[in-house]
């Protein structure tokens, strides 16, 4: 499953990020590395982007970007 399928307010562990090099690197830099705990905290109008909590930071990820984040 990916971050898009995550249930709101539930914590998951990241398995990996699957995207092209630059995009993958950018998400990893934000702290979305394998083994990290992540949680979708908020739904927004249009259902896109997702608001996620990771390593103490609150991030907005487009659905397209969240799909690259695979969960364990």
């Amino acid at each position, binding site marked *: 499953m990916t971050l898009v399928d995550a249930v709101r307010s539930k914590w998951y562990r990241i398995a990996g990020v699957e995207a092209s090099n630059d995009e993958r690197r950018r998400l990893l830099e934000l702290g979305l590395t394998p083994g990290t705990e992540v949680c979708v905290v908020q739904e927004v*109008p249009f259902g896109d982007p997702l608001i996620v909590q990771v390593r103490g*930071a*609150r991030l907005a990820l*487009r659905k397209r970007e969240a799909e690259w984040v695979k969960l364990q």
Partner: protein
Amino acid sequence: MGKATVAANAQGRKRPLTVCLVGMPNAGKTTLMNALTDSSFYTANYPGVTVTLASGRSKPRYGSEELIIDLPGISSPASPSPEEELACKVLDGQDDTIRPDALIVVVDATQVERHLRLASYVARCGKPMVICLTMTDLLPRMKLTLDVQKLEHALGVPVVEVDARSGKGLAKLMQLVREAAQRQFAMQKLAQIPQDPVAAYDALSALLKSSGALSTLHPGIADEVTNKIDAIVLHRWFGLPIFFLILAVLFASIFWAAQPLMDIVDTAFTYTQAFLAELLPPGFLTELFSEGIIGGVGAVAVFFPQIMILLFLMTFLEDTGYLARGAVLVDRPLAFLGLHGRSLVPMLSGFACAIPAVLAARTIPTARERLLTIWVIPLMSCSARLPVYSLLIAALFTGRKSWIAGLVLSGIYFTSLLAAAFTAGLVSRLLAKRHRRSLSLLAMELPVYRMPQLRPILKLTWARSSSYLQKAALPIITVSAVLWLLSNYGYLQYRYIARTSLEQSFAASLGQLLEPMLEPMGADWRVGIGLISAFAAREAFVSSMALVFRVAEEDENTREKSLLECIRAARLESSGKPLFTTSTIIGLMCFFFFSLQCASTVAVVRHETSTRFALIQLAFYTSLGYIVAVLIVQGLRLTGFA
């Protein structure tokens, strides 16, 4: 640092240290900068690139005065934006202008891992550094504790906890910075963290875990306050209504609150003009200066209060943390059009004035989305068009109720938004066929909500608005001087240049030269003069129309009335038919809607992009305005409207 320098430093140095603030965006650098310098810093554009740097002296209460430079925030040293690139160049010692003696790495205490990753990159550059922990007041909100001593020991770098708002820890910070600058550089543990993101995070987690500096590495949900506010302002159903409500308040303040201030500026310039005409000896230069330059600058300066209020409110919203949420709310529709959530601020600003809007586009991370945003900004109905529309609408709906005018005006604003959306969608799809999809990520950090501090906001508002004045001043002065010359001087019988009436001026000749082009849109050379002078600032159209039709009344209300009467009475010289017919007026409104008639905007776009981009944009919108105007006028005539 060599031994000689260390010795010199020990014997009471004369030169202040250059200290750079480094950190990720939202780390609290700006707040720290404000605290260290008491908000008395200068912002200047870095030569060659579109990066604004703030620099100032630290206050004496924090020890000897040092030069503090706030470097742009770095989120990704691996793939830097132009702003980040400058910061990285300074860190690498490749920059000739800024050579820091020491660095303050600003680290958000609630996101230690993420921020220390950047700190490890900075440590590798080998400059003396001190880590400054900010946002420590938020730790209890997140049920976290942090042991500074243990952290310092684990990292091998001096760490100091500050509260920039109360000033706590700042004197210690500056003391540590001075000590660090004098010490021989030693390889710290922090510099041994690998740079690959996965390995870096793993190493940092392990390091922090073994140090026991943090009560927990996984703080979970952000602080309760942020959580609760986000649940409301990003709510599925309430999110957008709240957003539009905030926008409505924003626009109401831009248009209504600014009005009395705008009147003051207007009056001030009128008096200055009259005063200078009295004071200076009569002659060509006096007239050029008081009528041409002061008059022209005044026409644009009228919008300064509006721009200041806009920038103040934008900065305020930015500081609360809401603006980032606004970008999130509109990202979906904007991304569909090929724009970015961050295009929101530039596009909103475009309703006041295109110049601050183009400058605000700098925050958009990818070049393509930034250029596309700048491309559509001139479509947003800026306030310089307002006087033009009011005049034309009044001429169109003679004697009808005023709510019709209001309705038409709102319609124009809304249509301008639609036109910008349509243009963006079209251009991005045309380009998508030719260019490979470039990297476009939202991946944006949402800062925690904080109560903004007034003083720094006022300071920043002033810095941003005066940068607007600097940008716009030269083109406005040049164009208004040239237009004044053109409309007051002409070729008369035996003299090449002579003071003359408007009908015989160069502007009139130019208008007559353009008449074959103006004829299809139902206009004549007199309207042509108006259109030419509108290039200095669109609302100059109104004043030049008054000049053309010789409306010389001082009082503003009767002046507008008599201008309207003159406009209604105006006849075409060739046929004697009315000049301002329904079709002509609608055609003119269409022309003003599309046309990029603003020398200052062209100049600023050129500075922010390239000469080629600015010229193509100018040609595109001006010809688009012309073509649409001609089509509308001819179409209306065919369907029976005069």
